[in-house]
């Protein structure tokens, strides 16, 4: 059983998500804005928070800023396709990002993965990350953080192509665990790198 808090300002959406989540998920709390979210998370101490990017009171990023560091893990959920929203919330500390069009079983699966400390990338997020880290003239200050390895790039491209982790593992002749390691490593770089493109996106949303 994974204990989850839903944070979204649309009651209808929260109800829909609750109905679709699998039996291995227990929704222990709900919140509709930033203050409420911080309070509910503090009270219920969930394993995973499903966090809407656009929230009254400063957005999902503000919730992350006020709650982290914490053992609770965050999965961002949004209708937005804007790169700065997606990258912003992941750099704010979310362990992954999925769009609201995701199916119930996929979401259940993603929550389970985040609860175990892995990262969850939607195809779109993978595309943004590839774009942001793509070879440009931007100077590389810290190769350890500012560049993706060839393998990480391969994994991301497969995610962007719509492959599930299992399919990626099969395609690259590696284990699912190794795929997860690569994705987590990309997530770490995404959160810690000071690459120019990332800073630009972040700055547009005044995150850094």
């Amino acid at each position, binding site marked *: 059983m994974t204990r989850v808090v839903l944070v979204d300002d649309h009651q209808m959406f929260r109800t829909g998500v609750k109905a679709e989540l699998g039996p291995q998920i227990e929704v222990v709390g709900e919140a509709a804005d930033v203050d409420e979210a911080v309070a509910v998370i503090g009270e219920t101490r969930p394993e995973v928070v499903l966090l809407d990017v656009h929230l009254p009171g400063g957005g999902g990023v503000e919730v992350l800023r006020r709650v982290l560091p914490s053992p609770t893990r965050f999965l961002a959920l949004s209708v937005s*396709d*804007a790169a700065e929203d997606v990258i912003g919330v992941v750099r704010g500390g979310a362990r992954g990002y999925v769009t609201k*069009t995701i199916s119930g079983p996929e979401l259940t699966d993603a929550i389970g993965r985040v609860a175990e400390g892995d990262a969850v990338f939607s*195809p*779109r997020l993978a595309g943004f990350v590839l*774009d942001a880290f*793509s070879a440009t003239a931007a100077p590389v200050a810290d190769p350890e953080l500012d560049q993706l390895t060839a393998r990480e790039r391969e994994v991301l491209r497969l995610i962007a*192509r*719509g*492959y599930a982790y299992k399919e990626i593992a099969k395609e690259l002749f590696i284990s699912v665990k190794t795929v997860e390691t690569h994705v987590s490593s990309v997530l770490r770089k995404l959160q810690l790198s000071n690459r120019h493109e990332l800073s630009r996106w972040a700055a547009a949303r005044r995150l850094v």
Partner: protein
Amino acid sequence: MTSNGIARLDRAKDGRLVAGVCAGLAGHLGLEPLAVRLAFVALLAAGPYGYAAYIAFWLLLPERDEPKGRRDLLQLVVYALLAAGLSVVTGVSGVAQLALWPALVIGVGAALLWQQTDRRQRERWSTLTRGMWWRGLLGMLLVVSGIGGFFVQKVSPQQIPQVLLATAIILTGVTVILTPWLVKLWQELDAERAERVRSQERAEVAAHIHDSVLHTLTLIQRRAHDPKEVARLARSQERELRAWLYQPKSDSSQLFAAAVKEVSAEVEDTHGVPVEVVCVGDCPLDERVSAMVQAAREALVNAAKYSEAPAISVYAEVTQEGLEVFVRDRGKGFDLDGIPADRMGVRGSIIGRMERHGGTARVRSAPGEGTEIRLELKK
């Protein structure tokens, strides 16, 4: 009286003695007309600038919208006598001739400023910035003491330093009074401009929502009996709204990524299968790149028509080496060798087209495992 209890500054028509200036000021400042009138009498007695101030108010203030009242002639006579008597006294003692011009200028300037700023703004000043009144008081003190300098001294060449000092004090006073007001005024103008921009944006959003979203919602209600059509309408509206909200205006006749998105949208609309598009990088369209987009379109149409997959993924990437497009579905798949040679779709429109333009197309498919078509074009 206005709704919030503060009267605007104007000239009274009811209860006036001469032109209604004093009664109007008293109403605005919340004082007894008697006090204002006595102050004016003192000003008149002190020299011509009292008259100038009165005339200035007379000209600058609008008349209050109310029926004319009868003048109390007895009161008028009393005030006139009082002013005349005092004038004789001050005229004989010869006070205040020197202070005429500075006082006149300051008085008219202050009156103008007060008149031109609107009432609500003045309220904001008085409520938000109580501290400013202390500044105002300090400024007034400086101005008055500066004027006092003129009063006391008869100017002679030796006294020029004192006159300069007095002038400097007056100027400092005026600056102290006016600077915060001007700063505030400027800030409020700025805020007002921002508000105007925002309201324009809101109007644009409203217009867009009306033209597109509301229209689609109406259509959806009308087609409620046809789930497939409803889904198609909703999806197409969603895509349009997304493009409008999140994507920079791009011209699909110019750029690769936009063209890929456009053909994907077209297939989604025609065949009612959701297409998820992810693009990385971009490049201008030329003949070869356009051919590649057309091949991708053909792959999408095939997937939509035959795969029976619930959704299709498109991934398009532009790197320094070249362009790649992947069209993937999790549908029923097929055996490429089993396709009859006369079926143009895959062989002609996709593989053939790519090869004619110096690219490659590879089909990976197996019955039950879906299909992925990979298009590649080296730069």
